[in-house]
């Protein structure tokens, strides 16, 4: 799987520093888990964070002696990287994603049908940031809309076009109040995405705005 659309450096920086609300953190954790290039950027941001502390933390407290009992045997060396971005290998598919990052089984998700081949599943809402799943049938064109704040969308299955940009499984679409878009599902598979949205979506069409009142996205 090759990822073509990555989160911006600003998002990766926020992620590396632990400065994000949970919904955005979840999406970025899932993306960097399968994206070596973003993991490498996160590791660099972490080193920069470490360096800033190293330069800034000028304490000269009295050293304490080492406790020899706390040292494990050499053969118990850990092999995981000292980074917040953990490599989970290749994209394990939708069920793997739900189990690993949403901590539940895909059977337990409560989907709501919106008609026209569109379903959503609301997951969390905290600090005015909603996290939700969206499932759309092949060929579905979503209503044109913009946002009140930031939005990250991670494609879990299938693919969609926004204008000329193709977003496939593993890709992230980074949108905000300046983005005006109309995703269109492409290919023969249904498309499932995880989105974290700050504030509400702002739709052009009256029908979409009415539907929005019922589903609360």
């Amino acid at each position, binding site marked *: 799987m090759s990822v073509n659309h990555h989160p*911006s*450096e*600003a*998002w990766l*920086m*926020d992620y590396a*520093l*632990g*400065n*994000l*609300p*949970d919904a955005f*953190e979840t999406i970025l954790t899932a993306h960097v888990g399968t994206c070596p290039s973003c993991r490498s950027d996160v590791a*660099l941001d*972490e*080193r*920069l*964070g*470490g*360096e*800033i*502390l*190293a*330069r*800034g*933390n*000028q*304490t*000269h*407290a*009295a*050293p*304490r*002696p*080492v*406790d020899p009992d*706390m*040292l*494990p045997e*050499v053969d*118990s*060396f*850990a*092999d*995981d*990287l*000292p*980074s*917040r971005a953990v490599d989970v290998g290749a994209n394990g598919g939708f069920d793997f994603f739900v189990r690993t990052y949403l901590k539940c089984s895909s059977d337990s998700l409560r989907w709501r049908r919106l008609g026209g081949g569109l379903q959503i599943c609301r997951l969390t809402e*905290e*600090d*005015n940031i909603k996290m939700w799943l969206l499932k759309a049938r092949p060929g579905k064109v979503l209503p044109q809309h913009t946002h*009140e*704040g*930031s939005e990250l969308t991670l494609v879990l299955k299938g693919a969609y076009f926004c204008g000329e940009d193709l977003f496939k499984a593993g890709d992230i679409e980074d949108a*905000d*109040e*300046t983005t005006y878009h109309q995703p269109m599902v492409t290919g023969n598979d249904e498309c499932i995405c995880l989105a974290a949205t*700050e*504030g509400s979506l702002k739709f052009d069409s009256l029908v979409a705005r009415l539907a929005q009142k019922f589903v609360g996205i």
Partner: protein
Amino acid sequence: MYPGSDLPDPITMAQITPIDSAAEAREQKRRNHETALLVQVRDHGDRDAFEHLFALFAPRVTNYVPSLGVDAEGPDAVAQDVMLAVWTKARLFDADKASARTWIYTLARNRYIDLKRSQQREANAFQRLQHDSPSAIDKGDRAANYVDAAAVAELLKDVPPEQAEVIVLAFVEGYSHREIAERLGVSIGTTKSRIRLAFKKLRERMGVTI
């Protein structure tokens, strides 16, 4: 948009004075010594070298990790955890990418972030049980309380002030890029672009001297 508008004033670059080059050279010598110790630990499982590293860094890490609040491990326990990770993960240390000092502080920072976030999640879950609104990420423990601004300024000396400002707000003050845009009254696009340009410069520097 994010909660937490009662934000203190950030460090401004004008308040910061540079470090002289002799002090910088002394620092570099100390760093090289620490790195040599960590390489000994990495390559030979050298307990004496680790003891030295422990004596040097355990107090600093203890100082960095602030009180984590109710039901938390104390700073001392966190420092022990971090130093244990220095021992167990030493073979992952790459001296071409970071000095021992940077590497150890990176471990400390990551450990601290994980603890902070997990505590925040527990606190929010508890508040939900009490039918209160969950609170935002706690900004009360930002790194600004622990770092010396002049030393950070040295790292950012080649970065234009408006770009350095966003780096300080993120790395020292603990704001997200969205919060920084709101705080500075600039667009989200401008903030992202300043971050991108600052990183470009910093990455060039990170590769050689840190």
